[in-house]
């Protein structure tokens, strides 16, 4: 029998106390956080420029600069570290052994080619190289960035739309609810992959468009949960109390209903990230997602698939990565759902 949550903990502390009891969820959370960390720090893990180096009597940190520059908006302020960012500048040949340099763990860029094509896994190329001699480990690390950002950004868009539409439907009720519920049902009926494929014919197939299109087709689950939560919550006495205090519609929706409806939406969004990762992989595999030479798990799988008979080693890394990521997000979603359900308290785990 486990100890009940601390009486004086705040809501989020109690959520964590309950989440922690689910071991699979904690493992999943560990995987998710590691993947996010790899995604954010990928130039520091794999790249063909050093993390820190001394070149012609000056200190440089090209990989750090590159990492910062990839942060949206804020990254724009930082200028590229010349001459390392310039095309045609090969850090490896420019730096002599005498120069001090700390290289990333995998000292290859994701699009850096070499003469060694189809090299089997070795101590130099941990996961081998592909048909034009690019290091697969480096491409996997940079593919993580693509998969994670597609998952998170797409679900951010979906979460926003879902909370908004579901919130309005649940709060307004009546014919507004009827119309929006039908809209939700129609969107559910879309065969998402085919819709995306047809839209991608008109749009430039790139990562941003993939994020947007997944976001605007995968919001229905969040909307339905939020609608239900709003309907349930708006009958609560604390909402009546707020109305009696003179609170307007907007204040009630934003201050009283939304914070209480966020937890179930978060659960659906967590499952949604796993879905989005799968959709992105499928799109890239079909050639409608991230375009070569930029790596993503999906197009890595595609290039591996072409050489499946002769060089089967290439197919494992993207398969394992997709599997682990999807499983991890689902485990976290499951644990989160159990943690926010107050009835979990009663069935104490053994």
């Amino acid at each position, binding site marked *: 029998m486990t100890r009940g949550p601390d*009486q*004086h903990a*705040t*809501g989020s502390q109690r959520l964590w106390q309950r989440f922690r009891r689910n071991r699979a969820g904690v493992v999943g959370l560990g995987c998710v956080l590691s993947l996010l960390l790899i995604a954010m720090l990928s130039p520091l893990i794999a790249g063909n420029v050093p993390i820190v180096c001394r070149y012609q009597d000056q200190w440089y940190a090209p990989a750090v600069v590159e990492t910062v520059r990839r942060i949206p908006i804020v990254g724009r302020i930082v200028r590229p570290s010349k001459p390392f960012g310039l095309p045609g500048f090969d850090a490896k040949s420019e730096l002599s052994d005498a120069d001090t340099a700390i290289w990333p763990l995998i000292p290859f860029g994701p699009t850096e080619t070499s003469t060694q094509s189809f090299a089997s896994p070795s101590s130099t190329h941990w996961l081998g190289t592909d048909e034009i001699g690019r290091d697969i480990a480096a491409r996997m690390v940079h593919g993580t960035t693509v998969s994670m950002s597609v998952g998170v950004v797409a679900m951010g868009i979906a979460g926003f739309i879902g909370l908004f539409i579901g919130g309005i439907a649940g709060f307004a009720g009546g014919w507004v609810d009827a119309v929006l519920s039908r809209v939700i049902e129609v969107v559910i009926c879309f065969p998402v992959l085919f819709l995306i494929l047809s839209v991608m014919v008109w749009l430039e197939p790139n990562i941003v468009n993939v994020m947007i299109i997944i976001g605007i087709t995968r919001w229905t689950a969040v909307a339905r949960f939020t609608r239900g939560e709003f309907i349930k919550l708006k009958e*609560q*006495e*604390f909402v*009546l*109390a*707020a*109305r*009696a*205090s*003179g*609170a*307007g519609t907007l*204040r009630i929706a934003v*201050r*009283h209903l939304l*914070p*209480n409806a966020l937890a179930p939406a978060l659960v659906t969004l967590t499952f949604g990230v796993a879905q989005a990762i799968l959709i992105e992989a499928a799109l890239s595999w079909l050639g409608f997602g991230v375009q070569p030479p930029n790596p993503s798990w999906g197009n890595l799988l595609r290039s591996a698939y072409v050489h499946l008979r002769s060089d089967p080693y290439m197919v494992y890394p993207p398969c394992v990565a997709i599997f682990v990521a999807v499983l991890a997000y689902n485990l976290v979603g499951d644990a989160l759902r159990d943690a926010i359900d107050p009835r979990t308290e009663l069935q104490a785990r053994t």
Partner: protein
Amino acid sequence: MSEAMTSTGRESTPTASPLLRVRDLKTHFPIRKGVLSRVHANLRAVDGVSLDVATGETVGIVGESGCGKTTLGRTILRLTPATSGSIHFDGHDVLSMSSSTLRRVRRDMQIIFQDPAGSLNPRMTVASIVGEPLMIHRIATGRNMSERVAELLEKVGLTGDDLHRYPHEFSGGQRQRIGIARAIALNPKFIVCDEPVSALDVSIQSQVINLLADLRGEFGLSYLFIAHNLAVVRHFCDRIAVMYLGRIVESASAANIFASARHPYTMALLSAVPEPDPQRKRSRIVLRGEVPSAVDPPTGCAFHTRCPFATDICRSETPPLTGKTGLSDDHIVACHHADELLQFPASTDHVSASGGDTL
């Protein structure tokens, strides 16, 4: 205390314009069915209630679960839309006022809920719960607000240290005190207390009742005190109205309800009040059957299906709520046989003697 309150209450009742005047108020909830959402029946939660509350007066509403007393309280504050009738509060027509006027008038009329857990937003701190009305009406912000909230908390028996805690960190009685602090934050004239002590332990009940009584003395508040237990309202209310299936069946000063109840339903409620003396023998009026459905209320007197004294006229004609001979002026009863029931001393005598001082 109760004696003094009763007399002031009786004097203030006939004044020209009471603080709250409710006339023939009806709140029906449509029951929709089928694809086209046709209204197929109405649930008559409140079905023609007239009621006055004078300044400084406390009126108790008593009745079983489902008799419409909670809906009545919420309709008066316009938290539930009324179907027909009129509500005048402090000279304003509550049902027809614009939302901006309503917001202003709501500073003067507040509500305390039955369930102290459900009436506090679990994701807000005490400071923001109690401070919210102050913020909405732009009475205080920032530091001022914290000071004002701390002051309010001290007034209801909590401390300023509780400001940044969440509702779940408090006991039921403390939560109800937070709800009371929120209700008095705007310095209202009138508060609907919707069974404020029903969810609390008996020992806590009296503390909360005493707090409400103190606040009444300090701020000159008027209360509409909803309860399902006569014992609770006996000493707290000036007047008591008994509700059955959406209507008031008997209304009188608190003392008169206990001394000379005439409606058989009131008598039944009185006989259900616990008797503290186990030696004392008394006969109870035990009501049989269920409360009839408010969707399809019985014809005539709604109580006839369970009334031990019902006759043919009760089944066909709705009795008016009027004064009866031998009763004081403010004592009104809706019963065809109110005069004859005086002949049942067995039922009134022992009942009035067994009021039960549970408070």
